[in-house]
């Protein structure tokens, strides 16, 4: 048997989708707020994988008149990374402040506000 393992766009998309779903699962089920934030990172990185895979496999054209390649997807991914980092930084700060007042960082205990 001959397994030629050529990895194509679908595989990357699949990985992206799986990462997204893992992240989603983490957000749904993790008790610790930090773990929830980590799961969020997974979701955002799934997006990055998608963007870069699309760029690499589908829209890898050169810029007109040059030999440079269009890197829209890559640049987008960089923006996503940066913004996500900023978001998580604020998230961690909030977790700390909540931990200080409640001595717990469990998201299921955040139910003072309801109905």
């Amino acid at each position, binding site marked *: 048997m001959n*397994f*030629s393992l050529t990895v194509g766009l679908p595989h990357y998309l699949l990985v992206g989708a799986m990462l997204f779903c893992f992240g989603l699962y983490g957000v749904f089920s993790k008790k610790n707020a930090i773990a929830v934030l980590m799961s969020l990172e997974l979701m955002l990185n799934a997006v990055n994988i998608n963007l870069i895979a699309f760029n690499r496999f589908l829209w890898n054209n050169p810029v007109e008149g040059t030999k440079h390649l269009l890197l829209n997807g890559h640049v987008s991914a*960089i923006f996503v990374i*940066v913004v996500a*980092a*900023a978001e*998580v*930084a604020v998230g961690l*700060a909030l977790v700390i402040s909540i931990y200080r007042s409640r001595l717990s960082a469990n998201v299921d205990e955040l139910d003072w506000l309801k109905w």
Partner: protein
Amino acid sequence: MLNNFGAIGILLIFAIALPVILVTVPKLLAPRKYSKEKGTVYECGMETRGETWVQFKTNYFLYALVFVAFDVETVFLYPWAVQFRKLGTFAFIEMFIFIAILLVGFWYAWKEGALEWK
């Protein structure tokens, strides 16, 4: 296409099977004897008292936060540096503005005491 998925499938099977085997085989083979000694947390050193979870000082987090934020911002410097020659002076000025904004942020963090160890 099928072949490719076949390969992934085999990989997947192995990936799932291996940990399962590694966990179950010792369980079946190994003899089990429980004793009080074995139930303690550490096999050497002092016994812990109070909470097992150790709290870090929040300053660690603050450092980490400041670091993450600034570290990630520098990612923008790479594409700029690679294309620096082509972009010309205007991009140079723009990058200075960008760094100036970052510096204001840094100054802010400093002034607010994020870098002090209390």
